[in-house]
């Protein structure tokens, strides 16, 4: 089976600014692929290359088996895009914009459109200039989700939505996945990616620094441990894979590398452990680790 998206080592510079520095990304068909990174990491640039709106300086890009720069129009019939910052025409209503986008894409589902308007609680009779950022985002989301496409490219699609709408959005993405669609979901809302994604790629300064399923990524990372022991835990400090050991109010806290987890737990048993919590790293910690390392490099 060919990949829905295949990017091989693309680069893109704007003047002296390097936006993409040899980025590789593969998205399998039918997957929800989380695309995670801070602002300015190159997420939007990557998506615009996938849309054929920007041309990469070098490297190879394939979307649904086609070159997006050369076959943009044919490809766009098969995909829908939601930009991170949706701008609408001030004197067109939201309903007009939704219909227009759907028709320009080549297919509209009136019933599905109305259902989505209801679910997202959007008033389609208001003019574009009166919508808040969240409502403009809903217009683009409804237009994208109402169309019959194979691939959804979503660039921070819920930045302006409230938690209730966020839940509606998550339902919609699950439905899209159930319908066999592929979704590339760029975000810095980590909880969202964590909940929805089959695989996650983390982008930093125009490069993918980490890619894999959530389980695979957890394997690479440290587990946070809090423990209360009978005996002082001085011996833990020198143990391989243990980081940031400290005692706060009698509670022992540290992080431990995944591969060292088993010996450390054994050691804790020997120390007479009375209380223990361990949890996998959140995506915040994943990111912090990569960018934290980066910050240290810069300082050094």
């Amino acid at each position: 089976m060919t990949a829905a998206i295949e990017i091989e080592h693309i680069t893109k510079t704007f003047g002296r600014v390097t936006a993409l520095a040899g980025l590789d990304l593969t998205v399998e068909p039918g997957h929800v692929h989380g695309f995670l990174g801070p602002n300015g990491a190159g997420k939007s640039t990557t998506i615009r290359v996938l849309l054929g709106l920007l041309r990469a300086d070098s490297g190879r890009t394939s979307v649904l088996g086609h070159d997006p720069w050369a076959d943009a129009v044919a490809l766009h019939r098969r995909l829908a895009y939601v930009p991170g910052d949706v701008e609408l025409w001030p004197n067109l209503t939201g309903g007009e914009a939704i219909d227009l986008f759907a028709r320009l894409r080549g297919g509209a589902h009136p019933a599905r459109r109305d259902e989505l308007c209801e679910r997202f609680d959007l008033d389609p009779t208001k003019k574009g200039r009166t919508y808040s950022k969240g409502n403009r985002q809903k217009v683009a989301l409804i237009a994208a989700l109402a169309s019959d496409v194979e691939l959804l490219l979503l660039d921070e699609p819920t930045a302006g939505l409230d938690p209730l709408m966020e839940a509606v959005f998550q339902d919609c993405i699950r439905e899209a996945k159930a319908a066999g669609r592929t979704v590339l979901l760029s975000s810095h809302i980590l909880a969202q990616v964590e909940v929805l994604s089959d695989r996650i790629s983390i982008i930093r300064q125009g490069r993918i620094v980490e890619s894999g399923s959530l389980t695979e990524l957890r394997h690479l990372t440290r587990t946070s441990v809090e423990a209360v022991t009978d005996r002082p835990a001085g011996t833990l400090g020198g143990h391989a894979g243990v980081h940031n050991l400290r005692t706060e109010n009698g509670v022992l806290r540290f992080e431990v590398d995944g591969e060292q987890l088993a010996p450390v737990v054994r050691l804790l048993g020997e120390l007479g452990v009375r209380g223990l919590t361990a949890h996998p790293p959140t995506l915040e910690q994943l990111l912090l680790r990569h960018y934290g390392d980066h910050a240290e490099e810069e300082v050094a």
Partner: protein
Amino acid sequence: MATATTTTSRAAHAVQRDSATRGTGVLLRFMLRRDRIRFPAWTLGLTLLMTYFATALETLIKTPEDLRGLSAFSASPVGALFGGPGFGFDDLTLERFLAGQYGLYIVLGAGLMGLLTVVRHTRVEESSGRAELVRANVVGRHAQLTAALALSALMAVAVAVLVGGMMAGRGFDPGGSLLFGAAIGAAALAFAGIAAVTTQLSEYPRATSGMAGAVLGAAFVLRGLGDMAAVQGAGPAWLSWLSPLGWSQQTAPYVHDRWWPLVITLAFAGAAAAAGYALSARRDLGAGLVPPRPGPPRAAPWLRDPLALAFRLQRASLIGWTVALLVGGVAFGAFTQPMLDGFEDAPADLVAVMGGSADMLSGFLGLMGLTMALVVAIFAVLAVHALRAEETEGRAEPVLATAVGRPAWIGAYLTVAAAGVPWLLLTAGVGMGVGAAVSTGDAGLIDDLVLGHLAHTPAVWSVLALGALLYGAAPRVLPATWAVVAYGTVVGFFAPILELPDGAIRVSPFEHVGEYPLVPVDVTAVLVLTVLAALVAYAAVVTFRRRDLTTPS
């Protein structure tokens, strides 16, 4: 017990009265800080415009005969429509002519200044949400409107002093000069008051300034009709007294020097402001008294391809231009006969611009065709700028992410703009033709003017295509297209005076088809320009296809 209640309510009342305008002083200083460029730009700008009128006329008019020649059409009904009631034109002096003919435009500008200033500091602030931040502080309900009106009043006083001082400084009668300045400032107050009312009505800034602008337009027309009646000595001359602009003009500076019409203006401004305060108390912050109209929940069936979208986006602009060119055409055309009368003894330089004295009528009509072609060229350049705004403001991206290719997107937009060019030239030509036909009594002029206008189509197309090419190839230098229009204007109007060489004249795209009916239409030039414009437009599409899309990051 009863006493206690009364005391409490009185105390509450006192607090309320005290707080309604609390913070006005701070807000006024803040507005002055925000408008540190705008304030002098308006006040000095209007003064400079009047200075320009005065200087230009002083240069143009050297003898009393020159003055009489100019007054010939100023004292006509058409002159009255675009000037004023012509006080003292039977014994004309330079300052009377300046105040009577050009003063109207300074008064008009002052009215615009007043209304825009009030809308900017009230409704715009509310719709952007900034007013909410301000009002959450210790700021009274009426403080923003009060401060905005105070700012307008300061601007009005500044304009009055500057214009009055400038006119007095040129040696005109000091009393009349001061009155002239005051009449200008008073108009600013009147329209600040009107804006204080309209800004309560709609929640959209454009609608509120639009309504106040419509009142300004109506005031212009009312006094125009009244003044026409006045110079003819028959008809409803009293109409001028219904217009705030009319009150300013009825002061008749340098002639009757009457101050009392300005009392009407001040009373009107005060009453309008009071109405504004009363209305503002009946609405919520951010809301308008007239609820917003909902639009269609679905797109019309025809709105389904890039061409339809391009038309929908340019529709409002096309309607606006059509109306403006039709009205402007009629107005200019109506000048034809007075112009011919007035120019019989005009300075030689002016006659040369019109193509020499041999065929004054054809020269004037031909020049009007060129003038309107240059105006429509402004439409063309603005259309390309609007196209670029679609891209830079992020509205092109979601469209291009659908099954719409780049050539279709830019092609559709340029097609609509290109179709708008002959349409607008036709509109202007018909308007001008009707005006000229009524003015001279010769209906045959309509055909001449329509052909003369339409003939310029390929010239305007070439400007449009050039703008499109710059947009496609190097969008940042798009504003350079204005240079072509500016150059065309300079060559079109001043080539004879500047004694430009032939080669320099022919660089302008407007100098090839000929100014019909003065010279016959050059069919070869029409074809060549059309083909050139098409080729350049094609190059624009190709270059746009090849570059990266500009996106807001």
